């Protein structure tokens, strides 16, 4: 009675468990982000946007859609994945995970897969919501999906790492609120980098979020702050970095086993 090469029942059990958790808190996991996105549209899109000129041929309301989706994708992937693995550590139920015939990579696959699924669905829901307010075009749908999935997976991996590292609930919040959200706001979620003074443009290029947002926006409107190739490379680079860190956790058993 061995589990064989791949414990698909085990991975599926964790995946379902995580999805069920989201469904149980549907308000928190879906309704809240939709409401806050709508608020963004009302404030930025309608109230301010009506006084703003178009950004490179796209209405301001439509221009901010990709940035808004990215912002939600970043924060929701992080919080979902970090909470998913942190909570069993906190309650002690992780004993079961550690004593089960699942490999660390299977655990990562299940948690990250579930968190990414949730944020992809969320991203699509936000896109649909946005479509109610403004006219959204998607020039390169395949690329759009690729960026969406890759970003969701990468930030879910990142969130998983944070969840493993965290020692308390406050620490779960540190990275999303102190690093990711500010960098996203400064990274051109709501404006084009070209609108900034030249010196700021240079500095902004050190912000990794610029590349992720820019590539995603390109898939919508065909316009980008940096070339798409660079965006894609940056996204893959970040993904690879997270994989390396996860691999290191795996090797050392860091913070999961005593």
């Amino acid at each position: 009675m061995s589990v064989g090469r791949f414990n698909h029942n085990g991975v599926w059990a964790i995946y379902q468990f995580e999805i069920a958790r989201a469904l149980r808190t549907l308000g928190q996991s879906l309704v809240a982000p939709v409401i806050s996105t709508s608020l963004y549209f009302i404030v930025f899109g309608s109230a301010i946007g009506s006084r703003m000129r178009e950004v490179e041929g796209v209405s301001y309301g439509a221009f901010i859609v990709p940035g808004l989706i990215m912002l939600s994708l970043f924060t929701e992937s992080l919080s979902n994945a970090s909470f998913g693995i942190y909570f069993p550590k906190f309650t002690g139920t992780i004993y079961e995970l550690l004593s089960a015939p699942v490999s660390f990579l299977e655990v990562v696959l299940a948690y990250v897969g579930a968190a990414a699924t949730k944020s992809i669905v969320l991203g699509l829901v936000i896109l649909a919501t946005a479509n109610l307010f403004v006219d959204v075009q998607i020039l390169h749908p395949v690329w759009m999906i690729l960026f969406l999935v890759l970003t969701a997976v990468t930030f879910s991996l990142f969130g998983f790492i944070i969840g493993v590292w965290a020692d308390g609930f406050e620490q779960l919040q540190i990275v999303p609120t102190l690093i990711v959200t500010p960098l996203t706001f400064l990274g051109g979620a709501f404006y084009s980098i070209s609108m900034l003074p030249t010196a700021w443009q240079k500095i902004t290029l050190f912000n990794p979020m610029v590349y992720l947002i820019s590539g995603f926006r390109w898939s919508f409107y065909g316009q980008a702050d940096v070339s798409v190739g660079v965006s894609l490379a940056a996204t893959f680079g970040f993904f690879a970095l997270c994989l390396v860190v996860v691999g290191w956790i795996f090797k050392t058993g860091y913070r999961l086993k005593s």
Partner: protein
Amino acid sequence: MHSEKSAVAERDRRGEPGVGDRVLEIRGLGKVYAGGERALEGVDLDIRRGEIFALLGPNGAGKTTLISIVCGIVTASEGTVSVDGLDTVRDYRRIRPRIGLVPQELHTDAFESVWATVSFSRGLFGLRRDDRHIEKVLRDLSLWDKRKERIMHLSGGMKRRVLIAKALAHEPEILFLDEPTAGVDVELRRDMWELVRGLRTGGVTVILTTHYIAEAEEMADRIGVISRGRLILVEEKRELIKKLGKKQLRVELQEPLEALPAELGDLQVALLSEGHELELTFDANDERTGIPTLLRRLGELGIHYRDLSTRQSSLEEIFVSLVSERTEPRGAEAAP
């Protein structure tokens, strides 16, 4: 009789496991936690297939640590654990589906329903969904009526049952119960014992830890005593009981005796306290204890006595003396 023997021989020839064989083998197991605290040292232990083994020891002795290493929750600092010759670290994917663990602490998913959390465990251990098995487990544990309840609404005893159900969801061959009756009322304790016996009948090997000697006596086939991270005694319960069966009768004499009278030579009598006391050792389980004989002969010999007392060394006493024996020399060892 004959056919039974040849069946065993046949099984041995084919290398198949049988009842009573060694199923779990622990060698030189040691653990030093990150803080530098040594929790286990040089533990060697064999568990036989189908037995109930009770691990007895005071708080902090290392019982949970030992179980946690076997189950893969804690990494050993030294030593090995194997199940049917397979290393529990290297071959964990083959070993772990066969092992179930009920932890000491009530770690539960508060928001989950009983049914969901128990089915989850089955899947996690790599098994296909089987609602009938889950139903059976829940019924056996009197949890069926509670299957739709969220765990946080259950009492502590019910939560403990849920943890047992989770551990049984994947039909393990070896079950670890870490203090299954801690904080549990008398009725549930009886139920628990029943359950464990039922499991054993079904061929499951059970290893349980406890502080209660009565529990070990009631349940176990063999008993191991652990103290300060060392396994200091492993014995058949029957052997222990036999030792326990020995009682002593002390007879306090009015006048001290120079030597033991020859007339008492055929009895198990010794002269103690410089001739002030006689001690008769007898087996309480025997029909003839020898007490009436001794007292009659003393009367015939004109030996007067002041007082009589009997005593029995209980498992409790053996346990306490073993544990304290191991505690004291520590300081002495430290001095060169």
